[in-house]
């Protein structure tokens, strides 16, 4: 079986390269005075908004052979259901991976929205279920439920969603959700249930994932940890008599040669302001287990980008260049493909890749890296990499 590869929609703004820090490409932040730095914005009211740029990326991704893209959702970024519906008509194959927390929507509303979006897109919607980082940030979202309770709620949410989808009348009396004789009307009821990618690293998360997820989704972690994590998820799921696949979300930086790739990282690293580095050293917030696992990887001393090299082609400073996860893959096209193949051997069945700028890099990765990935066909036959 082949590997599914997704791309990412940069909802958190887009610098013009890994070197640049100003994320205002495509008028992501029209009120910001720095936008003249972006090199891709009209300035003033030219009638274009950020969705026009995102539409370009979605088209580039589908033309370049990606399944679709994750549309990440942060407090101050655009909303993924809106983006998906806006792009439905002008994309052909692009699958919209919508992250959301169960606290955002009543599950019946979520079912209706999903079925409607499936009809609007010809079945191209799928979920990334997130249960939330916790702490004060959950109350920013207006969500007062505590960390471990939230996974119970996620399980209930998906119980209800699946129950409604399977055909009414469906009733449920849970701690968080109640419905009575619920169902979807024709023809919404005829749509495919969305595939579910599930994020979360705690025990409570794994329990919920093993019940409902099609794909367990992890950030890239050190390869031995990823291997253990995937093994644990698959074991728990086996116990329930279900099958689950595993997937990894990872930033990559691929160039014709490894030297060029590291030069790009080096320039990006040199452009990090001192106060950003200082803040990075002091960071400690939120009760997300995944985030704290990544914090443990910080180097003790920071003098050069090289201090962030964890293992061949694995660099742990990506979150210093832009928001998001820390680990990423840096190297030649062959290097990057070989690392992805290694991850397949460790249990990955799918990837969500990203690189900056997402528009041009979608073409590059689709044309240069994906053709080199051997996937499961290469099992037990890993090529040697210098």
């Amino acid at each position: 079986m082949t590997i599914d590869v997704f791309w990412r929609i940069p909802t958190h703004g887009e610098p013009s390269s890994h070197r640049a820090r100003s994320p205002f490409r495509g008028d992501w932040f029209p009120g910001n005075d720095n936008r003249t730095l972006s090199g891709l914005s009209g300035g003033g009211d030219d009638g274009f908004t950020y969705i026009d740029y995102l539409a370009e990326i979605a088209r580039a991704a589908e033309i370049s052979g990606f399944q679709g893209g994750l549309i990440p959702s942060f407090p101050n970024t655009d909303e993924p259901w809106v983006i998906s519906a806006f792009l439905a008509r002008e994309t052909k194959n692009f699958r919209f991976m919508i992250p959301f927390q169960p606290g955002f929507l009543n599950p019946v509303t979520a079912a209706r929205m999903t079925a409607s979006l499936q009809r609007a897109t010809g079945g191209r919607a799928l979920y990334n279920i997130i249960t939330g980082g916790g702490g004060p940030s959950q109350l920013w979202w207006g969500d007062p439920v505590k960390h471990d309770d939230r996974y119970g709620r996620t399980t209930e949410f998906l119980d209800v969603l699946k129950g409604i989808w399977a055909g009414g009348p469906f009733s449920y009396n849970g701690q968080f959700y109640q419905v009575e004789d619920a169902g979807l009307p024709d023809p919404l009821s005829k749509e495919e249930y969305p595939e579910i990618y599930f994020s979360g690293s705690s025990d409570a998360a794994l329990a919920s994932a093993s019940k409902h997820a099609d794909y367990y989704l992890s950030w890239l972690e050190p390869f031995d940890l990823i291997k253990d994590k995937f093994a644990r998820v698959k074991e728990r799921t086996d116990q329930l008599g279900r099958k689950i696949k595993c997937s990894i979300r990872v930033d990559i930086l691929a160039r014709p040669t490894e030297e060029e790739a590291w030069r790009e990282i080096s320039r990006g690293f040199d452009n990090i302001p001192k106060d950003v580095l200082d803040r990075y050293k002091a960071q400690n917030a939120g009760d997300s287990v995944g985030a704290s696992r990544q914090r443990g990887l910080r180097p003790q001393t920071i003098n050069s980008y090289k201090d962030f090299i964890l293992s061949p082609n694995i660099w742990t400073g990506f979150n210093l260049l832009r928001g998001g996860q820390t680990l990423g893959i840096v190297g030649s096209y062959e290097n990057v493909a070989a690392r992805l193949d290694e991850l397949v051997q460790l249990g990955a069945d799918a990837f969500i890749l990203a690189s900056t700028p997402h528009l041009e890099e979608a073409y590059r990765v689709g044309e240069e890296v994906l053709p080199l990935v051997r996937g499961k066909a290469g099992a037990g036959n890993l090529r040697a990499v210098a």
Partner: protein
Amino acid sequence: MANQFYWQLPTSGDARYGDATRQRRGEAADPNYPVFGSGVTDPRQNAFNYYDYIHQVTKAADISGFTGVFIPDNPDGEEPWIVAGYIARSTQRLKLLTQFDASRGSAVYAAKNAVSFQRYTGGRFAWHITEGNSDEHTRKQLGDFVPKEDILARIDEFITVAKGVLTTYPFNFVGRFFEVQDGGFQGPLSSREVPRVYLSGSSDEQVALSAKHADVHVLEAAGHETIAQQIARYQQAASTNAPEFALRIDVLARETREEALADAKRFLGQTGAPIPKDESSLLWPGFAAEYTGANASLIGSYDEVAAALAAYANLGVTQFVLAAVPHFEEAYRVGSYVLPLVRELTRPAQKQAA
């Protein structure tokens, strides 16, 4: 300010002209069963569905001069915010008035959704917030177990929180239904237009809530006298904050009154509804309510219907939410033949002369 005209999108199916049978136009009911007989090749297969038709109705409303589209929330139909997003990039001008109730989930998330709509459409997104279905069992089917007497209080909190996070940082709120701590949008999501809020209802409580929050109060179709009374009563109750008034009403307009009556009778005959004894009235209660959700329809010649609409405008109505079956063909008809007459009749100079 010029009057605004919204055309309703048929989110849960539409009929065709002269045939009241509701169907999903553009969509094969059974994808395996050819619609054409054995005589004609059917090239469509599953290339289109009802969304393509909704898109055509939107373009029809845009081309024929409406101000916006009204996207009703019918539990048997497509979800309004998905529909709004789906059509948004096909028009640079139409306002998107979406209907929903406050049981849909987090008010913060609804506000976030609205910000993206506003960012991507230049502020064309608007909210018509309803109390949802009046039947308790139907509400429970939709996952809403809040008692009937609390529904207005929930709408109040929903709007307070949504407006709060859209306009204030940090925003804090602890209510019975919603709680926010240090909320509010920043950076690219800050300082976007709050969606215009439409509310409806004629009870004292509903009017009070509307006076507190609404930019536009939606009146259901009724005779001119009733509408005049409702507006007067509202303005008395809400003297500090008089919003605009919208009227939700259907229209069946034809070149002549005789043609309009004939089509109206045919429609009622096909739906099995009784034909009113008194055909002289312009306003037929319940005419296509099952299809459009509107209380009543104006039935008459282009001139008669336009004059009736203009008379509502003279009473203080500034926005019209119009519909007729079938929505595609009738958007062109109403936009081409009725709206220009209403605009002519309500031009400021003529109002003064009247």
